[in-house]
């Protein structure tokens, strides 16, 4: 927003000279908007948030005409029980309530339960709502997909995007990715210890021990040059691998899949630097498929 817009609107009454009121709506506190040379201060009215009881009341207003208000109220109660400690946004809760009500009423429609069988209804809907938290709430699957899935009988098989734990990769690509992970999360000085056959004893000096406050896993992946990646790769792969263009193109395709990230300028052809962009669970799953014990090679787990 231009600097003069806010100040202008605050003074609109003075500039126009008539009876004009300007109403500003904001989610963020007023102090963050105040211009630095000062301005015409507005009257601030704070809207308090809804309490749990008020949310219950408001959400119960949406009840379907086919079922009683009490039934809907108990449904809302269950919904709030699952979602209230995570999210209090009225719009999100209304959306979730609308999406899941048909599933809630399923036993009533099928004739398996009556309106007063609260326990059975609860048992039916609770795992469903927990599933919703991992998928629809996170917008990982769309609402229409969710509704479709509810209509199908049987177990819920649809998983959200982030739950996809592994991608099908060729054999060497998996090792390249593992090598990249090790290069990102191990400090370079520890490479000798892990990857050489006859390394000497490596002592952690006192200085190092004192300054190891946070593990590398908390700070994030570090960039590494291509040479280091290849060095680690050759040492962890059992068979003899020739450094053909095939290997390099696999590295590029890992970058395209966003499992590796290119650091620095795109034009730097000489010694490109990369960073590994996968999580620990992901790489562990991949390492398991090639029978590689990655935990033994990680510095943080020494």
């Amino acid at each position, binding site marked *: 927003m231009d600097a003069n817009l806010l100040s202008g609107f605050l003074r609109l009454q003075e500039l126009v000279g008539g009876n004009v009121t300007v109403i500003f709506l904001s989610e963020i506190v007023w102090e963050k908007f105040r211009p630095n040379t000062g301005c*015409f*201060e507005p009257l601030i009215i704070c809207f308090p948030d809804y309490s749990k009881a008020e949310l219950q009341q408001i959400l119960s207003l949406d009840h379907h005409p086919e079922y009683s208000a009490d039934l809907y109220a108990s449904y809302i109660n269950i919904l709030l029980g699952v979602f*209230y400690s995570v999210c209090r946004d009225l719009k999100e809760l209304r959306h979730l309530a609308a999406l899941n009500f048909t599933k809630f009423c399923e036993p009533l429609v099928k004739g398996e339960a009556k309106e007063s069988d609260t326990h059975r209804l609860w048992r039916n809907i609770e795992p469903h709502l927990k599933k919703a938290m991992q998928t629809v709430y996170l917008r990982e699957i769309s609402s229409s997909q969710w509704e479709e899935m509810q209509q199908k009988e049987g177990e819920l098989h649809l998983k959200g995007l982030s739950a996809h734990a592994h991608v099908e990769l060729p054999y060497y690509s998996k090792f390249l990715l593992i090598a990249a992970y090790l290069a990102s999360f191990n400090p370079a000085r520890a490479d000798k210890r892990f990857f050489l056959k006859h390394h000497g004893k490596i002592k952690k000096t006192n200085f190092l021990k004192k300054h190891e406050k946070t593990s590398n896993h908390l700070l994030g992946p570090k960039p590494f040059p291509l040479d280091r990646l290849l060095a680690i790769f050759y040492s962890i792969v059992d068979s003899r691998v020739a450094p053909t263009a095939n290997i390099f193109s696999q590295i590029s395709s890992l970058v395209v899949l966003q499992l590796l990230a290119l650091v620095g300028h795109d034009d730097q052809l000489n010694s490109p630097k990369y960073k590994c962009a996968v999580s620990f669970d992901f790489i562990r799953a991949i390492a398991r498929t090639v029978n590689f014990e990655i935990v033994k090679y990680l510095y943080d787990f020494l």
Partner: protein
Amino acid sequence: MSKRKSKENCLTHGECILKAQRMLRERFCHQKIPGKPFGVESQHKHLLELLKRTAVHGESNSVLIVGPRGAGKTMLLNCVLNELLEVKHVQENVLQVQLNGLLQTDDRIALKEITRQLHLENVVGDKVFGSFAENLAFLLEALKKGDRSSSRPVLFILDEFDLFAHHKNQTLLYNLFDVSQSAQTPVAVIGLTCRLDVLELLEKRVKSRFSHRQIHLLSSFRFKQYLEIFKMQLSLPEDFTDRRFAEEWNQNIKSLCEDRSVEDVLQKHFCSSKDFRSLHMLLMLALSRVTVSHPAIKPTDLLEASRLCTMDSKANILHGLSVLELCLIIAMKHLSDIYDGEPFNFQMVHNEFQKFIQRKSHSVHNFEKPVVIKAFEHLHQLELIKPMEGPSVRTQKEYQLVKLLLDNSQIMDALQKYPQCPTDVKQWAASAFG
């Protein structure tokens, strides 16, 4: 006569209150600019003298009125102008051009506005001018046409003067001051600004053409006078319809001024800012508590109004957070304590949260990581945390460094007021290092 009087006094109590509220509200919301501002007699005289010289004697002048926000600059100017226009000769002769730095953000726009306010659009028509100076000279020349041999005096009033100094090359200012130095048309350039260092903003050539005349409005009144102003602002005028009601009201206000707690509230406000706008906001809030069942302002009203004015709005936001988001804030608080305020990333916060879940928590669920990320992003949206650098594509979301924008006392206060806060969360917050 007596019949009319009794009719007037027949306003019901409710109507009286409404009328009184309306009158006072107009005063507080600045719908009517009141009479003279308080305590600026010498400045008033000075400015009037200056403008008279331009309007009556045809002398060109330039002046800057400088004072902090809410000191009464516009009020003073309007007062002086009203007094000036009472002179008959002046009213017919003098032209006014009002420019505002917030609206005229460019010199071209300013020139168009000047043309419009001098009613010279038809005269200018489709002419194209080579430079700003040519255009301005043409406009001023056009004012000469008619019987008079000399041109009509023009008063240029520039509100938010410091914003004009940010325009490219300061052409408008240069040309206006140039005209005020040369003896062609009697022109007065009056600038109003809140910046005390406004002269530093002017270019050398502009500064040299300015007369360096400044009128300072620094509210120099003491607390006693502040109390007097408070009483005056809340009192109903003599000509209020229901005399009895007005007298009762004014009596109540007088007793209010003698109350100890009211004096404390006003002292607190006086110490933080002397200007009238903040006083008006306080009075506005106190006035809005007056109803038929509560017909007079009591000291508690002022206390409540003062509390509303000085409230911490961030605390309200913390009140509305979900339990998961609150846990994240407490985790961030512990991280700030351990690492002395250094920035952290989401992964570290999640790690702290996991430690709490595994060791100390009974009531808080272990949520999946994406759900926790969504809660973290909600906090980011509310601007309770701030990223250290812009959103870069290079670092992953979980590893971007952020800083917490709340301090420990705010968090602990919020926890006290948080409805149905789980006890293990409270204990975790109070413990030393998580």
